């Protein structure tokens, strides 16, 4: 192969080649890390919540008159809502999943704070929550309506039954069956598990234990709660307006806050992740465009300044194919040196990001793809200038410029 003469000619005209390979090195470092980070965010955002989050809205309801019958209000509102057209089901909840606000408590698999323990994101609600959230039970049933605790003062113990997510069950009971098992709070009060939710995310999407959730059968005693309402697909906006009117008509003496779509709350929870993903992929795209422009620019420049040399080579017998091969090889050498430096740089940045910012370590799979990708980009960018070089006529050898 003709690598030796290409190398020596490169070494005599170092500046441009060094610049391009430096650019390729930084490009590789950025692109590999950016794609890796983006990929993580995208898969994070794409996790299923287990909830029918596109067809749910919720709002706060507060009774403020001193002697207002709060529990009666909730019961009557629910009866009204559940028969409204377009509504699949509705439930009162003290907190709403994916909203960014919630409660978490530590539970144990054995009494006296023994056995396995895990925090659980708890939601106080009634027997309609399963249908109102659109979650799937993989075993057991929802609460018996007669077991819901309608409390006027805050109780100090958890109701004796619970519906928990599979993730919480696995954290507490490992390989034992979850349904029918009993978990305990920190004062050893038992909670028997009567239903297992296949998947349900809790309040904080940024929490690594977001899928450990529990429904507990209790309503009250606070003067405010949230109504969670699930509608038939496509009916969200219509029902949101209708519900406000119907509830205030039934009882104007309380305050209804503005209803929020669960899809908006979810997006809000992931806002930082999607901002990061969007910015990083934009940067990645731009970096690739600029690098190919840079490679293209340098290759064009090289061809332009060497028309006489190319003409001479053609005149002494080099075929067009040889000229193309010469420039492609030259470009490949520059790209390769850039990629070599870039690998170290990428690993360095990846390591630094992972230690400094508690991000996961860069996976090598991305690095290999990045190297292959840049080789392709480099060759593609040099292709057109190389073809132009091949078109230089042998007669150029005899001209001056």
């Amino acid at each position, binding site marked *: 192969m003709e690598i030796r003469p290409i190398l020596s000619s490169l070494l005599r005209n170092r500046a441009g080649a060094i*610049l391009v390979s430096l650019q390729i090195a930084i490009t590789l470092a950025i692109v590999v890390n950016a794609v890796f980070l983006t990929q993580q965010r995208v898969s994070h955002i794409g996790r299923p919540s287990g909830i029918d989050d596109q067809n749910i809205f919720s709002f706060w309801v507060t009774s403020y008159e001193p002697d207002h019958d709060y529990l009666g209000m909730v019961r009557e509102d629910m009866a009204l809502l559940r028969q409204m057209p377009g509504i699949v089901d509705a439930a009162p909840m003290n907190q709403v999943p994916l909203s960014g606000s919630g409660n978490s408590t530590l539970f144990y698999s054995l009494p006296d704070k023994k056995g396995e323990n895990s925090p659980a994101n708890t939601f106080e609600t009634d027997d309609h929550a399963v249908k109102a959230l659109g979650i799937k039970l993989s075993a057991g049933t929802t609460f018996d309506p007669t077991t819901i605790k309608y409390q006027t003062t805050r109780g100090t113990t958890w109701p004796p039954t619970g519906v928990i997510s599979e993730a919480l069950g696995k954290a507490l009971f490992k390989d034992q069956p979850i349904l029918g098992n009993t978990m305990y709070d920190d004062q050893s009060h038992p909670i028997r598990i009567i239903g297992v939710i296949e998947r349900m995310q809790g309040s904080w999407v940024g929490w690594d234990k977001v899928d450990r959730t529990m429904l507990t059968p209790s309503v009250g005693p606070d003067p405010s709660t949230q109504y969670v309402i699930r509608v038939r697909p496509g009916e969200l906006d219509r029902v949101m307006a209708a519900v406000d009117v119907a509830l205030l008509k039934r009882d104007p003496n309380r305050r209804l806050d503005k209803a929020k779509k669960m899809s908006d709350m979810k997006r809000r929870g992931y806002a930082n992740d999607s901002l990061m993903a969007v910015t990083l992929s934009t940067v990645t795209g731009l970096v690739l465009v600029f690098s190919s422009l840079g490679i293209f620019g340098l290759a064009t420049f090289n061809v332009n300044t060497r028309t006489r040399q190319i003409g001479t080579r053609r005149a002494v017998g080099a075929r067009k194919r040889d000229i193309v091969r010469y420039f492609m090889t030259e470009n490949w050498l520059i790209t390769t040196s850039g990629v070599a430096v870039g690998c170290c740089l990428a690993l360095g940045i990846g390591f630094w990001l992972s230690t400094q910012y508690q991000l996961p370590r860069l996976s090598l799979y991305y690095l290999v793809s990045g190297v292959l990708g840049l080789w392709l980009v480099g060759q593609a960018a040099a292709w057109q200038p190389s073809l132009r070089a091949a078109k230089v006529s042998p007669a150029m050898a005899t001209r001056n410029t």
Partner: protein
Amino acid sequence: MFAYYLELALRSFKRNPGLTALMVFAIALGISVCMITLTTYRAASANPAGDRSSILFAPSIDSWDPNQSYDDRDKTLAPTMLTYRDARALYASGIPDRKVIMYKSGGTYRRADKGMAPQYFATRMTTADFFAMFEVPFLYGGAWDAKADAGPDPVLVLSKKGNQEAFGGVNSIGKTVLFKNREFRVVGVLDDWEPMPKYFDVSNGAFQDLEDAYVPFSWGQVMELGSHGNTNCWKTEVIDSFQAFLNSECISFEAWVELRTAEKQRAYREFLDNYVVEQKKHGRFPRPLNNYLYDVDGWLERNQVVQDDNKAMLTMAFAFLAVCLVNTVGLLLAKFLNAAPSAGVRRALGASRRDIFWQHLTESGVVALAGGMVGGLLGLCGIWALRAWYGRFVDEATRALPFDEANFLICVAIAIAAGIAAGLYPAWRIGRAAPASYLKVQ
């Protein structure tokens, strides 16, 4: 001479408009990405306490679980909030020049004359010094006094927004509102005030909305107003009443002290240690003595107000700028070398190497300036677009992405500095070229 160089530069741009545009665009894009990330970063890393930052302190004392540290990330750190008992005890100290204890609560506000639609107001339960300590501006009236704290007197301060909603924005001093069915008299209305980040309460979110009303702390106990912010507990305790909650080891209260001299700061640290040692005798504070007193900068850092994402993005943005600049160096070099013959002629006619160098550096400076301006504008457009996009579901978008002239100027300055740095090598290289070789072939 400079004007002549400028003219030469413009003429050179006309010769290769495509290449020039590419260079300007490269710098512009690099700068705009930097500007967007720098905007978020600077917004998060700002310290609104200004020069009071070094005399305002947040105490952090380790009242946490003996078996588990408070912070998973750094096990040496103590909780960022206080128990009710500790908040009260710290407030009793006479050392600080000013002191405040507080927590976040809220409830329904309305007017007895039904002049206001009942509304939830996030409410800061706090003490009299709050307003002076954090330099809160008043539109009408002023803060309540220490006597009102002790009473507690039924007085409150409304934010400008709260006053707008309760009284339509008129001077409401002396008027009354019902907060959870109890009558309170308005003694002050705040002017526009939006410290960013909300440094005095980062535990409940550094970019959260400010409260609509401020009520004397002691009403919390009287009216049994629970925390509407974060509450963390570790101990097995039966909490069956509000009083039991106040006596528990649950933390949701915050304290700040103003300590103007180093002596007072030392004394206060000593006070904290003595307090904890004293409490240990009563069986509290089971962990080793581990107290901190943070100034505002330290507090923002301890609470990681600047998120890791912000830092990672800033790193990426500057790496991107680096690619754009290396690209520009390459393009400038190619452009200058292409035009080398005319530089050779200038040299032959008597221009010194230095003249050639300055001429080309001027050219790259102009490219950089244009890139910086275009980049700044692109950055503004980018911020505007992001705000429009995120503003639909994140109220904090405007606070996290503020329009800020300073950022624009910083970016243009970075662009010019970087562009000139990028031009140094090509300009030097072209200045060094021997004129003879170019003249020969002409």
